[in-house]
């Protein structure tokens, strides 16, 4: 049997998850719906009677909070299928390196989240008349980076909480304090990009770089710690 | 000045409450040890 490379193993796992998700589309729909609801809830909460929109800072914040909250849906489902059919044990028994499992799960979850965000951003643009077109590619990059940062931590926690009773309650509570820098960097950068009156985009560039650095740190820690955390199962 | 006293007082109170809680735990452990001792003695 030919030895498969680490990357192809990770890709295999990612593809498996995406394939399953593609058929049921469960996470896509539930996460997407929740994200849209969060945005609506914020609209009702923040827009006062006379105004029709909020400033770019608020729009950016709403976008990322919606991503964070609905992202926990995707994360809690990441290992659900393995848990339900006890497939986690067979997955761990296989000679696949744990870091490849982590990477595969990370890619799959991030991809699903990203897909939802691609629909969410235009929704926000429409609701709040926010100008996403001038820097649409950059915004896409921010969404990707932020999602990766969020998922890199979330996949570990989701795996560790596999058998915990208060899984859903705990996941958000444990995850959010740690990913606040991600939220901060992503929403700051997005705010600058959405602001038509911003003099220059240096701050956005800075925050984007910061976000990328965050991602590197979190993914490295994640790759490193996935095995000992999951091996206890 | 009251703020300083409040701040310091709070730290004091917090640390003492913590030590008291730890002390309670110590007492509980001692009680359990005694309990175990009792159970072992008749059987030995």
């Amino acid at each position, binding site marked *: 049997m030919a030895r498969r490379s680490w990357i192809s193993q990770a890709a295999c796992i990612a593809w498996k998850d995406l394939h399953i998700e593609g058929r049921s589309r469960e996470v896509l729909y539930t996460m997407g719906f929740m994200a849209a609801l969060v945005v609506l809830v914020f609209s009702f909460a923040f827009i006062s009677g006379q105004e029709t929109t909020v400033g770019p800072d608020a729009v950016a914040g709403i976008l990322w909070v919606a991503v964070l909250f609905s992202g926990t849906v995707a994360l809690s489902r990441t290992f659900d299928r393995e848990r339900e059919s006890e497939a986690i044990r067979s997955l761990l028994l296989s000679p696949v390196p744990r870091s490849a499992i982590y990477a595969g799960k990370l890619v799959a979850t991030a991809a699903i989240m990203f897909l939802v965000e691609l629909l969410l951003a235009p929704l926000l643009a429409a609701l709040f008349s926010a100008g996403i077109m001038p820097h649409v590619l950059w915004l896409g990059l921010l969404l990707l980076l932020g999602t990766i940062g969020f998922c890199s*931590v979330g996949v*570990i*926690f989701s795996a*560790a*909480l*596999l*058998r*915990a009773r*208060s*899984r859903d*309650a*705990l996941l958000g*509570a*444990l995850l959010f*304090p*740690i990913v*606040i*820098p991600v939220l*901060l*960097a992503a929403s700051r950068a997005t705010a600058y990009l959405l602001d038509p009156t911003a003099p220059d985009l240096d701050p956005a560039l*800075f*925050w984007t770089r*910061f976000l990328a*650095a*965050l991602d590197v*740190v*979190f993914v490295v*820690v994640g790759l*490193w*710690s996935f095995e*000992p*955390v*999951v091996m*206890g*199962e | 000045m009251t*703020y*300083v006293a*409040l*701040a*310091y007082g*709070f*730290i*004091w109170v*917090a*640390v*003492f409450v*913590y*030590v008291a809680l*730890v*002390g309670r*735990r*110590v007492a509980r*452990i*001692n009680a359990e*040890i005694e309990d*175990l*001792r009792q*159970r*072992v003695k008749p*059987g030995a």
Partner: protein
Amino acid sequence: MLATMPSARRSSASFLAGIAATLVGFLLVPLLVANAPLEKTMGVVQKIFYFHVPCAWLLMLSTFVCAGGSLAYLFAGSERGDRLALCSAELGVLFGLCVMVTGPLWARAAWGVFWTWDVRLTSSLMLWLMLIAYRLARRYGGAGGRRLAAAMALFAAADVPLVYLSVNFWRGLHPNTKTVSSLAPGMRLPFFTSLLIFSALWGVLLALRMRVERAHSRLAELAIAVEDAEEESL
């Protein structure tokens, strides 16, 4: 076998030592602080700084010790490392609470508002929240709780500089000056003494708590052994 549990008695002794150390330390600190020179702009209120900063220091120290212990536990299976992580996280929550109370008190007295999204205080708040989350993970995390918490500690430690940097750039400059290096000479002694005493307090509390925790785990083992022995003798 029970005779090999002198650690319980030692726990009581070190417990008393802990109280004694606390008393001595806390009696010394106010004396020093009272004799320290008054700061120009803020007057007496600035003296909160002598307790506030050491507590913030201890919060950070606790986080790093917790991460170190978690590292040992996750990658070397060290139970002692796990206990260390648990105890230092607890102390971190305790001293974090002190920071979160003294900070706003200082802010209120000095600037009139309780919270100003100051860089250091906000970063400390994040750190404190992470340690609280650590405790929650340990208590309610179920079977994988210890490992989850350990992973959390690692992320939290990696996060410390990142949180600080991000909040720093987010808030820009803040009236809070670079306090420690620009301390007036008369203030250095009380400050560093206070820092030393608080750190000693932390160390004593940690040692005490570790003792208790070790006694607790040994007790659990013994209880199981006794039950097994009782079942066999039936």
